[in-house]
């Protein structure tokens, strides 16, 4: 039988080759100091009527980088996304299913029924985008002028005998816009 030391050396060399091959995907999110936040992004947050503790994040990925401000107010989670120059991209607010209007609910359920035999809505976010002033006006005064509203749902369903999660986006009337399967992060170090 192979000596344990020789076996260890063999396994380390074999796995090192795998490491080199695996380093192609790139996605990273990390905390950002307030001093590193672009002035116009900071000014947008400062203009909000609710002043909560804001956590800033920088996100790097294959499609582009962005800056996110995350905070919670009145038990509601907000995520406000800017480009790296501090220009507003969108505002995401976590909501509950009853917060969605009945007509939009009906449209969404009709789509899900038609496409998935089994489904469960795990999470809903409403997205608002548009000119910075319009979105700010909406957040502070709840006036919905000149902004685009979308619903982003995280839906659990089955695909080829396997449970999967989809991110499904609908417009403000509940019309389907896009579907993307969510790739799970590796949990081997928690399972074994």
């Amino acid at each position, binding site marked *: 039988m192979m000596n344990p030391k020789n076996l260890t050396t063999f396994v380390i060399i074999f796995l090192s080759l795998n*490491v080199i091959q*695996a380093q192609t995907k790139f996605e*990273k999110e990390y905390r950002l100091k307030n001093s590193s936040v672009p002035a116009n992004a900071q000014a947008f947050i400062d203009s909000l009527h609710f002043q909560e503790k804001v956590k800033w994040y920088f996100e790097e990925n294959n499609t582009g980088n962005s800056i996110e401000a*995350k905070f919670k107010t009145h038990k509601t989670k907000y995520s406000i996304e800017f480009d790296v120059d501090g220009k507003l991209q969108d505002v995401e607010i976590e909501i509950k299913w009853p917060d969605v209007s009945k007509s939009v609910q009906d449209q969404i359920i009709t789509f899900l029924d038609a496409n998935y035999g089994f489904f469960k809505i795990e999470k809903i976010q409403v997205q608002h985008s548009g000119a910075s002033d319009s979105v700010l006006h909406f957040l502070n005064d709840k006036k919905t002028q000149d902004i685009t509203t979308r619903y982003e749902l995280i839906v659990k369903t089955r695909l*080829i005998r396997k*449970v999967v999660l989809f991110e499904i986006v609908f417009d403000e009337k509940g019309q389907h816009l896009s579907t993307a399967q969510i790739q799970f*992060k590796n949990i081997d170090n928690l399972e074994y």
Partner: protein
Amino acid sequence: MSTKIFLGLIIFCASFIQNSDAQNDYRVGLLPAINVNKPLGRGWAVNFKYELRQFALQGDYSTSPVSTFKYDLSDFIFIASKKVGLNNSLSGGYLFRLRGTTVVHRTIQQFTIVNSYNAFRLAHRISTDQTFEPREPAEFRLRYRLTAELPLNGESVDPGEWYAKISNEYLNSMQDGIYDLEIRLIPLLGYQFTDNNKLEFGPDYRISSFLENAPRSVYWLSVNWFVKL
């Protein structure tokens, strides 16, 4: 999760370890492990783990430790798992242990639930195993392990980032009609090279035989390398 909170947890764990058995035997050693996982599709995966035990010191708290640097054993573990839900998996496997010329066989069954929250992940693992060793009665164990993984930067662990992983496990054992309980406390620091490649290291404290006898403690320096093919 800030680094300060993680360091606080380490100090808390260390104080628990020191106070738990001030007058009893202990051993100190290295516990390196390589864990390779290969998904097979349709929720199936196979896992191979190789773990080596190397003792370095032993003694009791009233005398100076004696250096006993020697190789103890090697474990080869093969597990097949099937996802049975979004966060749940059911696994079964076999452990082959080599200690000198003695060969130990263990069959393993386990159920794991991993829940993701906004800023951490929590895993519950319930497992049973049956150990068969020559000239020893069979040992049957029921285990529960709770593990928390906390990113040290941002809200999730991403490539190129550090994380903390803290495990607490309770192992109920029955051998020849005698019950024993082992408790493990394992605060580790991890680094994610890629989503499929992680390295973790830190203390692994185990205490057993404390219900009716003098407690037996083992302090391992654990180094775990996780690779997904």
